[in-house]
């Protein structure tokens, strides 16, 4: 393996370690559960306020839970710029998909796009699965690919069995939340906080 490859491996391991706490899994699981439980026309409110929770709460919990246990690192400039570019592309794309789904929902309520009505839950499932897959790439966590497949499978099963997609979505989000909880408990028990972060 070349030097660059080794550096990337170290960096990847550092990313993996800093997300071993399961906090992102818990956040995603709870967000999906909440989205499945509220009325579809209130979902935009849940999603947009969750962004605020993520921006304000994320660093707080990382500082309180993760950093005293496995430390803090700042990725190198190339990685930071690449991540910023990815976020810069993904965030507008996510907003466009969100707006399109809301537009579709409003249109269906007004009696338009009726042909798409049976497929709407599957469209939502596909969008969520794509979001989770993008998150897997951004956080360098393969388990988010499994979550993505789980969510897609849940919405597909809902369509195939003609049962309410909400039930399946709650089931999938509970599985993700439990996974996050398990990771958090394991992380807390495996890594005691370092009382002194001083060298």
């Amino acid at each position, binding site marked *: 393996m070349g*030097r660059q490859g*080794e*550096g*990337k491996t*170290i*960096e990847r*391991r*550092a990313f993996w*370690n800093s997300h071993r706490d399961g906090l992102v899994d818990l956040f995603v699981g709870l967000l999906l559960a909440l989205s499945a439980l509220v009325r579809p026309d209130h979902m935009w409110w849940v999603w947009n306020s969750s962004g605020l929770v993520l921006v304000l709460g994320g660093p707080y919990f990382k*500082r309180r839970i993760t*950093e*005293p*246990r*496995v*430390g*803090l*690192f*700042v*990725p*190198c*400039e190339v990685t*930071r710029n690449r991540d910023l570019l990815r976020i810069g592309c993904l965030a507008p794309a996510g907003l466009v998909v969100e707006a399109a789904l809301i537009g579709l929902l409003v249109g269906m309520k007004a009696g338009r796009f009726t042909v798409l009505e049976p497929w709407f839950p599957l469209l939502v499932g596909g969008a969520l699965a794509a979001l989770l897959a993008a998150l897997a790439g951004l956080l360098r966590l393969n388990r988010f690919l499994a979550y993505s497949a789980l969510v897609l499978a849940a919405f597909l099963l809902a369509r195939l069995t003609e049962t309410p997609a909400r039930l399946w979505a709650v089931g999938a989000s509970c599985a993700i939340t439990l996974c996050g909880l398990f990771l958090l408990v394991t992380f807390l028990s495996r*890594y005691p906080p*370092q*009382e*002194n*972060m*001083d*060298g």
Partner: protein
Amino acid sequence: MAKQEPAADRGRGLLELDRLVHEPARHLILDLLEAVEEADFVFLLHHSGLTRGNLSCHLAKLEEAGYVEVRKSFVGKVPRTVLRLTSAGREALHRYRAQMRTFMGHRP
């Protein structure tokens, strides 16, 4: 055919290795710091597997040589040490690797 360097010259090259970088624990610390922009003491402790005292001792030597920049700050009431590889440290690491490559390249 290229003329081979005499064995004695290659041996002398090995003697010129930077011993500060050659030490495995310090080499590991420099490798870790090279992969990131900066990292704190707990990160190095966690990823190197060294003991607190050992890590502190090696970091002090690297700081003294100007290979590592040490920044002390507070998170609330808890002191935190943040470390960064300096350009001199990066150069020393690259030079050491080049020297090792040259030496190992001649080994049968």
